């Protein structure tokens, strides 16, 4: 080990126990003193780095860990809780969307009928040509005579335009609304104190059939559903 290497080693590792290093150290008083000085310096560095540790740190670390573990457990419960909560929110949203939208439609239909009650008593005697003239503007045609059309006009349900007809039923007037722009998933029965009927999905949009209570709507329904053709 040459002098340079020895000195470098003494600086890097004053407490080096390497045989060659120790041999070199003990070879002369000068080199012994050199290492001793560096060891003393190292001792000083150790003292300087020996900064006081905050009191109670160990206890705080253990406390933190215990609390953290508790919080982790609680977090697990929280995760499950929030999952359940979000699932139920989704359910609630889907539920309200599915049902309230139809309920709204039902309300709109009845509101429109009551608003225009006078149409139930009209005697316009429209024939199939009149009906088709109006239906054409919506892209539809009826193939067969659907009966006496006492009122024929357009209507506005849920801000969507449709065809409003009043036919003569067995017990009284029957309201038909063809709503090409309102889609529903399934046939929905609607009723209130005076009227009853249904909203039926059609090839394009839906058809509303409403009559007085006790009116048999099945025949009209059959006629309409099978004989309206929409140009899509």
């Amino acid at each position, binding site marked *: 080990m040459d002098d340079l290497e020895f000195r*470098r*080693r003494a*600086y*890097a*590792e004053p407490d080096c126990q390497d045989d060659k290093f120790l041999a070199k150290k003990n070879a002369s008083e000068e080199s012994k003193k050199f290492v001793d000085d*560096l060891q003393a*310096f*190292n001792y*000083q*560095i*150790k*003292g*300087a*780095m*020996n*900064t006081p*540790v*905050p009191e109670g*740190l*160990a206890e*705080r*670390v*253990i406390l*933190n*860990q215990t609390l*953290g*573990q508790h919080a982790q457990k609680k977090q697990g419960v929280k995760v499950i809780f929030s999952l359940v909560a979000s699932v139920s929110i989704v359910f609630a949203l889907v539920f309200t969307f599915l049902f309230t939208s139809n309920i709204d439609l039902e309300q709109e239909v009845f509101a429109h009928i009551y608003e225009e009650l006078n149409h139930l008593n009209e005697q316009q005697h429209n024939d199939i040509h009149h009906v088709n003239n109006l239906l054409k503007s919506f892209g539809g045609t009826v193939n067969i005579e659907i009966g006496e059309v006492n009122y024929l006009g357009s209507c506005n349900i849920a801000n969507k335009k449709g065809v409003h007809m009043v036919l003569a039923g067995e017990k009284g007037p029957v309201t038909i609304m063809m709503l090409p722009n309102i889609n529903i998933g399934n046939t929905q029965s609607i009723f209130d104190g005076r009227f009853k009927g249904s909203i039926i999905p059609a090839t394009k949009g839906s058809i509303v059939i409403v009559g007085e209570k006790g009116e048999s709507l099945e025949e009209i329904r059959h006629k309409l559903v099978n004989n309206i053709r929409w140009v899509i």
Partner: protein
Amino acid sequence: MLRDPVTSENISFNMKKFFLGNKKTEYMVLSAMASKQKRFEALVNALYADVFRYAYWLCRNRSMAEDLVQETYLRAWRSFESLKDEKAAKAWLITILRRENARQYERFQPNLVDMDDVAHTDFMGDVTADLAQSLETYMLQKSIGKLELEFREPLMLQVVGGFSTDEISDILKLNKNTVLTRLFRARNKLKDMLAENTLKRGTGNG
């Protein structure tokens, strides 16, 4: 081989064995948990001071150092199973600490007070031996604080951590010669800084 006929005594015996066995497992789980907690507490008590000092010299700020210690031990607890050899615990903790420090430092760079600006008092005059001693320590601390991290860190590992050069090169992921060079330069720089300070003090006073 003849099998035991299934009798009601047999069933109840098996049930008993089953439940007792279950209780034993439960006990084993509980005691494993308790022993993990115990081992962890031992790890805290044995090494928290070293870990704190290391953290302090890493970031040179006591409250940040304490946060680092807390975070280090929390992470250690979470991956306690990965500590296989408890003799290696100190190096393991310091590795976690260094990673955590790097993470925190990326997030937020503290406006550290330069140690040079703190209480720069002129101690010249009548100084007692104690005061001279503490002045020397103070100057040394200041100089250590000024060392670049690449020199300060191996020095910390050697002096505070008591690690061998091989261990230091493992922790810092450097080769052994680089570690030796850095240690050499660290002490060299410290000596230079101290000599410069003494010179300044001498001329300031003269």
